[in-house]
């Protein structure tokens, strides 16, 4: 057991896999000497060597492509893209090669690679450092999209991802990196692509992921005092989507609100809503609601950003309205 913040859990997961498997390597800008701009690789180079924790030039596309080559040869690269926004420079290699290679070679190649990306807002980094791109990645066949909400999941989902035989887009909320710390069992943890019921409740279901989970739990706790019992489902993975857990919860509560940090329009919340409408419609007592980011770039200033990304207040308004419907 260890008391870890989110960033420390990410680092501990890489350390554990680097120690367990010689094939694991870590590559990225500033991951070596500096230890990562968010400290997620501090100490790894000293412990595992500069040939396993590799500083790269600022060449996202080539570095990801290089990782693909290393992965097909049997290494297990963990590529850090410093901000998820920078992954757009590597989209060709991610989307056109990593995601498709297993399929278009008819199984001749596997790409066991993790691409870690600090993601989302909440740190006043402005429009080109604050996007939540999970819906975009979830749209690409061949990718797995992980979006952990807490240190325990950050640790175990990352370890699972490094052991996965497919490319995983691993999105880490940089807002969460240094906030709460949690007791993480470093020996035994959850494995698999399932969603987690973060809080049980009876009146309505909130399906959320990543940074919004904590926010939804806080709102749910406040609403408890008002007599509204919310069930909060933390998806953990946007793809594969654990529709079983979603269906069970919605069938119980009859009401669904989807909350995410990504832009609401064409966001993954729309997919969850559509799936529920198609498969669990008869159990619904109210129209499905969505709370996502407004369709504008993420502004720099905190008060401006609060107008764009779902705040506790906006989530609470939506949940109250859903409960009253």
């Amino acid at each position, binding site marked *: 057991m260890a008391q870890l913040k989110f960033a420390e859990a990410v680092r501990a997961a890489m350390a554990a896999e680097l120690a367990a498997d010689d094939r694991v390597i870590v590559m990225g800008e500033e991951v070596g000497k500096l230890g990562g701009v968010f400290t997620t690789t501090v100490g790894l180079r000293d412990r595992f060597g500069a*040939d396993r924790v*590799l500083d*790269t*030039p600022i*060449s996202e*596309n*080539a*570095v*990801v*492509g*290089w*990782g*693909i*080559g*290393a992965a*097909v*040869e*049997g*290494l297990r690269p963990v590529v850090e893209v410093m901000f998820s926004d920078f992954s757009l420079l590597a989209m*060709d*290699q991610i989307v*056109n*090669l990593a995601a498709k*290679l*297993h*399929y*278009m*070679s*008819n*199984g*001749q*190649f*596997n790409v*066991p690679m993790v691409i870690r990306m600090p993601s989302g807002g909440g740190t006043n980094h402005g429009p080109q450092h604050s996007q939540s791109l999970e819906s975009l990645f979830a749209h690409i*066949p*061949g990718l*797995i999209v992980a979006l952990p909400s807490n240190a325990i999941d950050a640790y175990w989902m990352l370890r699972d991802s490094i052991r*996965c*035989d*497919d490319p995983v887009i691993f999105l880490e909320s940089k807002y969460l990196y240094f906030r709460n710390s949690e007791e993480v069992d470093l020996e035994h943890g959850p494995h*698999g*692509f*399932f969603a987690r019921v973060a809080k049980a409740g009876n009146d309505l279901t909130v399906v959320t992921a990543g940074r919004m989970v904590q926010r939804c739990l806080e709102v749910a706790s406040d609403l408890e005092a008002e007599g509204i019992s919310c069930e909060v489902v933390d998806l953990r*993975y946007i*793809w*594969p*989507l*654990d*529709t*079983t857990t979603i269906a069970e919860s919605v069938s119980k509560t009859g009401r669904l609100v989807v909350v995410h940090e990504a832009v609401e329009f064409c966001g993954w919340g729309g997919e969850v809503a559509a799936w529920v409408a198609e498969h669990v419609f008869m159990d619904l007592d109210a129209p499905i609601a969505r709370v996502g980011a407004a369709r504008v770039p993420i502004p720099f200033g905190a008060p401006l950003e609060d107008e764009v990304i779902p705040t506790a207040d906006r989530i609470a308004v939506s949940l109250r309205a859903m409960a009253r419907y």
Partner: protein
Amino acid sequence: MATRQQRARKEKDVLADHHSQWGLELYRTMKLIRAVELEIEKMHHEGVMTGSFHSSMGQEASAAGVCCALRPADIVTSTHRGHGHAIAKGVPIIEIFAELLNKAGGTSGGRGGSMHLHHRMSGFYGENAIVGGGLPWAAGAAWARRRLGASDISVAFTGDGGAAQGVFHETLRLAQFWNSPCLFVCENNGLAHSMSTDEVFGEAGAITKMVAATGMLSHFVDGRDVLAVHAAAEDLVSEVRKGRPAFLECAVFRVRAHSLSDPEYRYRAKESGSRWLESNDPIVLMRDRLGPSDVEGIDAEVDRQVAEAREEAQAMEPAQPASALNGAYATPGLGADGAA
């Protein structure tokens, strides 16, 4: 790296020894590429084949010269114009035909098609339909193999168009930084689709100068001359095998239009290709060096081989449509339906 004199002597040796297995093998490989691609064109005209096709006619000496300098375990990645590279690296032509005919027995069971031939067993890691997209994973794979103790190298083919891509420069830099045993081969055919390479980079050889200025071992060769390409490739391959990248520019010519559907008359004279071929055909140039008695047997054998492969491929079982929904993931249980 051999000096100019050494290389001239070596080429003379190769030339003098042109009845040796290399000369015949190089000729045979070029002839096979030509015959397969002509057959593919024919099948398109007959309506038997669908989709796009980018002929490498006129560029065969580059594919044959470079790939015949490799070992079977060495890796090759290629471009949208990559049938020649696949054939020269040893991908069975029956599987290429089968892939283009959407047969279950094709290199990718009909999933890849003309621009996505992958054949790991031959070391042909694959074509890539994104210009420049095949470069970084070739360098990464070679680097990984070296780490794992093997002496194999990669060859990453690109065109002159690829030399204008960011990933070209990123990958060459990274390969130097991390000493990847990767040979980058730029087939400069003078046209990036309709864009004149002379206008973008300058005359043939300008890309070599650009790369040489980065400190990479670089060489320019006349891509019509298969013996010259092979000699240059052998020199560079032996350097690369020591553990550093190198670059080779082959000046070639694109005889055909960009693709089957390309209205090339809008940017060059329609007869440009055939006119060039009359006096520059690398296969004819090599045939003249070898002599008719050497090549007649090969020509007949290649023609027979191609006809048989086509016939066998056409008789194969078609890819099952339902197979399209499987295999996007290596992880068991992850399917197309989105659920775990």
